[in-house]
């Protein structure tokens, strides 16, 4: 199911492109904010939760997910270089699964790791807040990677759709329409954080059992469907 050559090509494509700069900029920004907040406001559990929930989980994780998820396959389909993967006796679902693993790893490294570091800076893991949000970021990394990898497989405008989902749906729409929050990777991952964090420190709109089922379902279905789409990917259209 996992092909090391596909993985190597995907890592190099992801980290070698200019777009990859965002992968470094966003976590750096989070750390800078954490240092500044700690310096000016001191260690405060509520402030720490606000920064990690408001910036790290609501904005940074989905953005990194968009870059890594769509970037793991979209550019290759766009420029046609994916023929070199497709013209091989390698099962198409294997290509998708490998790219998913790479996208998850990249998203975790560039979102969960900085979330943990920022949490430690903000309040030294008081009320388990750093660990709780890190777990949320890890879980969200998986679901976002799967979703955005599918998007990158089916659409040439994957980045735009991804950004709309990440910023408009997750960040904006979710704050006004309660129903939207039920269908939000962010809320599902927060359901896990809620259990880990101190009493009342973190809240989610979704219960843990439902959140777990939805996370698993979205990840599995998106990956399966992307594998099917790749099997019938049409590379023509030049004539």
């Amino acid at each position, binding site marked *: 199911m996992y*092909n*090391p*050559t*596909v993985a*190597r*090509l995907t890592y*190099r*494509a992801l980290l*070698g492109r200019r777009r990859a700069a965002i992968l470094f900029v966003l976590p750096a920004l989070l750390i800078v904010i954490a240092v500044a907040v700690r310096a000016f406001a001191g260690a405060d559990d509520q402030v720490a939760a606000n920064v990690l929930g408001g910036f790290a989980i609501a904005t940074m994780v989905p953005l990194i997910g968009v870059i890594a998820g769509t970037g793991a396959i979209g550019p290759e389909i766009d*420029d*046609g*270089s994916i*023929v*070199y*993967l*497709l*013209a*091989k*006796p*390698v*099962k*198409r679902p294997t290509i998708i699964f490998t790219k998913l693993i790479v996208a998850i790893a990249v998203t975790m490294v560039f979102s969960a790791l900085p979330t943990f570091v920022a949490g430690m800076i903000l309040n030294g893991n008081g009320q388990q807040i750093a660990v709780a949000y890190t777990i949320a970021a890890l879980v969200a990394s998986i679901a976002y990677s799967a979703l955005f990898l599918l998007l990158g497989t089916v659409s040439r405008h994957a980045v735009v759709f991804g950004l709309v989902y990440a910023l408009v749906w997750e960040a904006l729409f979710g704050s006004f329409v309660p129903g939207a929050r039920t269908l939000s990777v962010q809320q599902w991952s927060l359901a896990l954080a809620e259990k880990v964090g101190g009493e009342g420190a973190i809240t989610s709109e979704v219960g843990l059992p439902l959140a777990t089922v939805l996370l698993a379902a979205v990840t599995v279905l998106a990956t399966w469907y992307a594998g099917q789409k790749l*099997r*019938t*990917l*049409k*590379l*023509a*259209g*030049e*004539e």
Partner: protein
Amino acid sequence: MTTIEIDHTSRWFGNVVAVNDVSMTVGPGVTGLLGPNGAGKSTLINMMAGFLAPSTGKVTLDGALIWRNEDVYRQIGIVPEREAMYDFLTGREFVLANAELQGLDEAAAQKALATVEMEYAQDRKIATYSKGMRQRVKMASALVHEPSVLLLDEPFNGMDPRQRMQLMELLRRMGAEGRTVLFSSHILEEVEQLASHIEVIVAGRHAASGDFRKIRRLMTDRPHRYLVRSSDDRALAAALIADPSTAGIEVDLSEQALRIQAVDFGRFTTLLPKVAREHGIRLLTVSPSDESLESVFSYLVAA
């Protein structure tokens, strides 16, 4: 012995029919797929390569359907027309990745790089390669697993004459080894020099099939049209029409010239100056009026 069979296959994109009820068999040796731009050559190759499903009909490799069948790539090597490859890799890394995806190792990659004579630049990034170098690395990536079928889409585009000769030599050798080599081109001379067998595609239809002599004959035996101006057009017309090599003559008043349709190309070209001299007529203009490849192809389709 590996054979690709295209059986009553059509492919359309929305309302546009790109390939129209084509049947052909591509066997060992070098086959040239000849046709003007936009004739459907790439669509046909994409179906043979398993990148496109036929709308109707079927495309098979030794009896096995190619579409949605990753196993065929153990036997097929593909050189795509598009330039895009993994530009951030070196030539060696790229060919090695292709070898690994075929379940092979460094040795296979090095052998393929040697075959296309790209060892000297193998450690440079592909982004720095010229078009001809890219073409050769693409070729190496298709050859790593020594496929029995090689499909090349417009492989000579953008190559200089020396690179073209090298690639032709390589393909000729592969054909002689009994591999099935199919390449597309819109240039008759290219196809003629290389292919022992030619398939002509025009406007999505299979127009002609055969060796280059047969295709050549179809092309030279067709009615030729000439535009002729002389010191006495009417006298010349009267003298020419008496000979069976001339099928029709029209006096074009606006052009002040004769439009002549010749059925026997060889005979007409010797007849014209002879007749002119016998009648003391001076020839001012003799120009073929439909030598473009498209008109040749359109003739072939009608034939």
